């Protein structure tokens, strides 16, 4: 069992649709990050959230940290083919811990 469970594992949608991916845990995190990884590349940081209930927006992407700091979501509005990739959430249990990754959500946006 992974510390961070991501759902869905795979998502294939048409350009222009909205989607939400989830990152859940039974543990409380001091901070949580979302990364995007394209084939043959390393993950690239999208956002860091640290406060329970925090919402951050990055263009068409909206990130939310749960009130209890156990879960997070990523919502994409009007998805585009360029959004295709592997979305990874990663959390730290406390400031002194390693970054633990979820299993990822593989998103494909078809034109």
């Amino acid at each position, binding site marked *: 069992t992974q510390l961070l469970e991501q759902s869905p594992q795979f998502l294939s949608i048409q350009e222009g649709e909205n989607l939400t991916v989830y990152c859940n845990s039974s543990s409380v995190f001091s901070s949580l990050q979302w990364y995007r990884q394209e084939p043959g590349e390393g993950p690239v940081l999208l956002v860091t959230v640290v406060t329970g209930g925090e919402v951050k927006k990055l263009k068409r992407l909206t990130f939310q940290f749960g009130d209890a700091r156990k879960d997070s979501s990523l919502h994409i509005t009007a998805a585009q083919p360029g959004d295709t990739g592997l979305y990874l959430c990663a959390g730290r249990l406390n400031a002194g811990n390693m970054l633990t990754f979820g299993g990822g959500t*593989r998103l494909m946006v078809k034109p």
Partner: protein
Amino acid sequence: GAGVSQSPRYKVAKRGQDVALRCDPISGHVSLFWYQQALGQGPEFLTYFQNEAQLDKSGLPSDRFFAERPEGSVSTLKIQRTQQEDSAVYLCASSFGIYTGELFFGEGSRLTVL
């Protein structure tokens, strides 16, 4: 350099061979991490260095795996007597801070053990 550099990008080894994977982090970054990523999965933590000190090696799957960062810059991950289950992408990441902040990843070294 401008980013984290890893070499080789691709390595094919026969079962039982030893391999060495190199990571050149961003200049000035104190922290260096190694992760293992199986196909279609998220990265799994292997080991962490703060400068030249290896502070956490709890993720190394067996004593066949060894990592070093002797001068606090370049790091090498060595896998002895490779097995088929070692086939994966090995990602190196560095960060300026200690334990916190953004991780900057290299493109990874894809190891295939035949």
